């Protein structure tokens, strides 16, 4: 069993499925010999050939459209958007076709594709390389949207995504591509696609997050522990459809909730979670639901990106606010 990083776990999952299912193909820009700009497909073209790991022309609408076409014919394409900032030309195919093919044809045709995209800021990348717009896809019925925040979950969730008979948008928090290593067995065990993960149990406050903000959230939980405050940490992981039950259960226990998200605030996943707490969870709440989020601004170029991103301090501040209330 090897210790692998998140991006290596991504590679491992694709390698596993390429090896076990001849209908699986990878397609995208630079995914072939180059192994992807983040090396997520490293070695796969060499191992499985250029018919399985396909470098495409530079045209995202075409990539998405072809992936839809291939998926309807029984293949299982894993299409890559090189960065989430370049996923937008795919949106028409994702919204109008991938998400709708099964429903539209009453199941005659289906769309078992995965669109992978590295997303999020904090790696000193150029313009358009740092955004987090997962909420756009989460809003679209018919899509599954998945975000792993550890190597183990990256492996298990990507396997499930590839095998899913329905389309999955699989967003990879690239800031933590190399953050930590975990022992991940390449055993083909998939994770469920509609479950939040309680990463750390606690009693005093529930911290809900996903993707790369897991790093700061766990740091905050550590600091809180030093102060004798026990925080429960939840990785949403499958952001659509959302497993609200796990979150609500935790808040029922702690009575307090802080949601941490890198994305801009307005109409986002943090809004959805808080909205559910304002409804079914209202009587459990002992304090306002606080959201620590990116600002409603354009993700700044990297000189200022740290000022945009939620920090451990901001999380602690919000936790203090909800704990002050008694």
């Amino acid at each position, binding site marked *: 069993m090897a210790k692998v990083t998140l991006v290596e776990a991504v590679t491992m999952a694709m390698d596993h499925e390429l090896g076990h299912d001849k209908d699986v193909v990878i397609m995208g820009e630079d995914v072939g010999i180059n192994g992807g700009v983040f090396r997520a497909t490293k070695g796969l073209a060499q191992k499985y050939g250029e018919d399985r790991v396909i470098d495409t022309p530079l045209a995202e609408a*075409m990539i998405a459209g072809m992936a839809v*076409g291939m*998926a309807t014919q*029984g293949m299982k394409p894993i299409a890559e958007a090189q960065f989430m900032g370049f996923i937008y030309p795919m949106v028409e195919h994702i919204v109008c076709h991938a998400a709708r093919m099964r429903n539209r*044809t009453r199941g*005659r045709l289906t769309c078992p594709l995965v669109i992978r995209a590295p997303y999020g800021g904090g790696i000193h990348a150029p313009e358009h390389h740092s955004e987090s717009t997962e909420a756009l896809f989460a809003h679209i019925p018919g899509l599954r949207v998945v975000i792993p925040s550890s190597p183990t979950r990256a492996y298990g969730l990507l396997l499930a995504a590839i095998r899913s008979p329905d389309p999955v948008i699989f967003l990879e928090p690239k800031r933590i591509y190399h953050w930590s290593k975990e022992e991940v067995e390449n055993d083909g065990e998939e994770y469920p696609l509609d479950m939040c993960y309680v990463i750390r149990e606690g009693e005093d406050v529930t911290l809900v997050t996903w993707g790369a903000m897991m790093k700061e959230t766990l740091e905050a939980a550590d600091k809180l522990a030093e102060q004798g405050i026990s925080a429960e940490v939840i990785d949403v992981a499958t952001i659509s459809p959302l497993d609200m039950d796990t979150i609500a259960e935790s808040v029922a226990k702690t009575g307090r909730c802080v949601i941490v998200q890198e994305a801009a605030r307005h109409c986002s996943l943090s809004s959805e979670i808080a909205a559910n707490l304002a409804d079914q969870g209202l009587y459990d709440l002992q304090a306002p639901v606080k959201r620590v989020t990116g600002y409603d601004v354009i993700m700044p170029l990297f000189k200022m990106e740290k000022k945009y991103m939620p920090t451990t301090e901001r999380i602690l501040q919000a936790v203090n606010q909800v704990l002050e209330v008694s």
Partner: protein
Amino acid sequence: MTTVASFNIDYLQYLTPNGELVGDKKPRIATDFEKLKSIYELMVLTRTFDSKAVALQRTGKLGTYASCLGHEAVHIGIGSAMAESDVFAPMYREYGAQFYRGVKMSEVLNYWGGDERGSNFSGPQHDFPWCVPIATQCTHAAGAAMAMKLRGEKRAAVSVVGDGGSSKGDFLEAINAASAFTLPMVLMIVNNQWAISVPRKKQSAGRTLAQKGLAGGLPSLQVDGNDYIAVYTAVRAALKRAYEGKGATVIEAITYRLSDHTTADDASRYRPDDEVENARQFEPIKRMRKYLMSNKQWNEQLENQLLETSKKEVEEAVDEYLSSGNPGVASMFDYMFADMPHTLEAQKQYALDLEEKSNG
């Protein structure tokens, strides 16, 4: 200055508007009268269906409907040139092609009647459903062709786009994909001169629309889209090329939209009547009938019989459609995912409870 590449766009016609056969090398289909008669019958059936569908909409029994009046030759030309194992990626008005492939008239009506079950149609189960987002079907067809290529199959995908749709990125990217991957596909442009109210000349100043295929170096040609023999011959040749692994072809079929864009449209607002009147001379059914008659393959009596049986067949389809009921509240939820997430289960239960309450 040296010339590094040269290209031609050719135009293909066999059957003139007067029903005369022209051209040096006649294709076999031109004298396969059994086949031509059955094609003619389908053309007439399609037109009968079409005018009935428009009438249904006018009387509130159908939603917005896109007529195929005048497109019978090109649509059936495409449908009849294809093998069942080929994949068809239509836009939204190619009923003639689909009927040939086994789609039922009642299914077409279901679709325009606001019922998803229409797209779960008969015929080759791998065919794409109607595609409203213009030109997106072209990259889907490219994907299907890619699947065939990767699997080493002797099949091809055929997409159809309009003169309007030929301006959209998806069509142009599909051409590029077909070129880059040497895909077994045929990209049809059904140029009916209008995209709702926008005339062909506003889409591009190019002399032809076929030349868009030159972008990828694909063989690209025009055919008389009101001439079944030309369409069939061109598509057939293109498919043969595709089966042989030689890649894709772009075919622009020149025809005319004799109807409004859809029943929601009123073409008289933007289109001169005399243009339509003039176009009627070139319509495809008349010339086919003339050709068959002049070859003693058809006569008044057969014609009357055909009109009769077509009408009856259409009536039966309409009855089937009208008695199809509605798909039920649960159906909104049941086809969203293979495995329904529990959040959606809850919403479904809520909707069913609501329904029960409002019914009981």
